[in-house]
């Protein structure tokens, strides 16, 4: 286990930002941390990286506590902060060089790694320019670059794609996937379901300072949903078809006029084969399972939309 946080409590005056948080990250996985604004994602990361201390609870990184051996442990971590943390007047290359050096990377290794990072993040052409002249997406990419020069074993990304164009976002997601494939453990926080679904193998859902659910995307959606729907399209269905489908175990309703029938079942009924069996006498034109999304699961769990209305 690379990260283990147990019973973490963090209060800001009267406000409890982390309320008995338990969180673990396993070696090699990409863990998504999902939660609405103010859920405590950033606070959890700040406790994890030693920027702030918890009021109680235990943090273990790479098997040991943060104190004492801090430098050795910190070398294995790369943090991409939620807020841009760059020297805006120094060039992109200077920024990468500097943060690389802070982690003790020097000489030819530093030069190679910086060139590699510039290349993989698509910043080679602007390496000599200062980030203050960059677009939001370019700044975000450089913000990531500064965290990877020392090849961390654990890469923590706190909402790395906020406020940028789809192209830059794709670039970043590809990059994170690549890092993970190459063996880097990833902790990824986001408001965006589709990012987490794409990048992460496991997801934790946070709300009000605690983890309220966890598992793979599939597990989460399956366990939280009450109903699932399938639409079946057949040529010239007889009215009896509706009746026979309704009798299949788990089916709650079967609705629809004409050739498309909408079948609603209890969650996790695993009755699709039997529904289709009823339809075999007819020519089946199409079957579409409406897979529940993480967004649905989130809504069910927290009663909240993942993003504030004014954000997109």
């Amino acid at each position: 286990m690379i990260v283990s946080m147990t019973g973490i409590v963090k209060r800001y005056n009267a406000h409890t930002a982390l309320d008995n948080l338990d969180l673990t990250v396993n070696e090699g996985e990409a863990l998504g941390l999902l939660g609405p604004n103010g859920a405590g994602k950033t606070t959890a990361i700040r406790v994890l990286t030693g920027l702030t201390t918890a009021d109680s609870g235990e943090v273990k990184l790479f098997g040991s506590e943060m104190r004492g051996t801090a430098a050795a442990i910190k070398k294995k971590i790369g943090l991409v902060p939620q807020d841009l943390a760059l020297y805006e007047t120094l060039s992109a290359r200077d920024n990468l060089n500097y943060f690389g050096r802070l982690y003790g990377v020097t000489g030819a290794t530093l030069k190679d790694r910086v060139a590699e990072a510039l290349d993989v993040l698509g910043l080679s052409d602007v390496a000599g320019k200062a980030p203050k002249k960059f677009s939001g997406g370019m700044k975000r990419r450089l913000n990531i670059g500064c965290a990877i020069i020392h090849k961390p074993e654990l890469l923590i990304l706190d909402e790395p794609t906020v406020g940028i164009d789809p192209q830059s976002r794709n670039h970043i997601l590809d990059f994170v996937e690549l890092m993970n494939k190459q063996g880097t453990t990833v902790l990824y926080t986001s408001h965006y379901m589709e990012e987490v679904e794409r990048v992460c193998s496991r997801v934790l859902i946070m709300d009000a300072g605690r983890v309220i659910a966890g598992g793979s995307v599939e597990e989460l959606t399956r366990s939280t949903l009450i109903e699932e729907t399938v639409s079946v399209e057949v040529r010239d269905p007889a009215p009896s078809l509706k009746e026979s489908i309704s009798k299949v175990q788990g089916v709650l309703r079967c609705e629809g006029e004409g050739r498309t029938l909408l079948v609603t079942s209890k969650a996790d009924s695993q009755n699709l084969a039997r529904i289709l069996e009823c339809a075999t006498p007819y020519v089946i034109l199409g079957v579409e399972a409406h897979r529940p999304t993480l967004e649905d699961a989130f809504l069910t769990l927290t009663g909240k939309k993942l993003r504030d209305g004014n954000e997109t």
Partner: protein
Amino acid sequence: MKAFLATFWMGSKFLWRNPVSVAILICFPIVIILVLGSALSAYITPETDLEPAAVAAAADPGGLLGTFLQNDEVSRFLDVTFTDREEAERLASNEEVVAAIVEENGEVSVIRPGVGGLYTQLTMSLIDSYKQIGSAAVIAAMSGKNVYDILGKDVSVKDIPLGTRIPGSIDYYAVTMLVMILLYTGMNGLDLFNKGLLSDTGRRMLTTSASKPALIGGMFAAASVTSFLQGMVTFAFTGLVYGVYWGERIPLVLLTLFAIVLFSQALCIFLTMAIRHNGAVMGISQALFWTMTFVSKGYAKVSFGEMDKVFQYAPNSMAHTVIFGAIFGGNEAKMTSNLIILYALCLVLLMLAFVSGRRRVA
């Protein structure tokens, strides 16, 4: 060590790229010195547009002050009438002269009519430079007398190399200006700490494997060295272009200038650690710099009476004393103690900064 050096380089680059700091610390002093220099330097512009202004002097025309007032440099600005004290005072109060210079029992003072204008200020500055050893030493040398005779026991006897040129008001101003500029270089440190350590970028730096002392030390070193080098531009400029006489003990002068730089950075780092509010630190440090420059008469020649005895311990005043002493020969014991006090002050401020930094973390 690696992190310290990396931060030192990064910080230096950051500061040299900062257009505001470069403008304030390099361009501004050069412009000021160009303007002042044109008015004061007899060697660059022998002719001047200024008409000499009428001044009354209650002094012996054959004495040191008299010789000084009649020398070439001064008489370009002042048209001096020698008279007795009562008459001089009357002329001043009737505004018939821009100032009355009175020498009594070895004390030289300036009586100004009302508030006084540019020429009154100029007269006071010239008299000040006379009192501040510079020109006095010249006059002493010219009149074959000893500096000791003019300024009393505070000054040791020293030969001024007059072979090539004569020190004048510009020499005095170059010192005042440079000390003032260097006092303000704490702004460099502030800027670096604000955009670095106290920002999101700084929080990121703290999550790296670099140690906090290496990061803070690197920034402090970058701000100090960069500020000093920026001051050196003015130093070299005044020396090379205006031929300002910086004396023969350049290392001592530089050591003193560096003390002022360190003091300024240490003060800013301490305020930053103790207050942690950019705007407040900025305001307080500016106000402190302004006050120090004011009480040590960096802006205008104002007398504070008895308080002057206290104000001579303003860091920049202490630096002035050492530098003038190094150039024209001053009391060695006083110079040494001033320099030690200055460096000790830096140390105390840094320790205070360290303590308040610790307190915040705990």
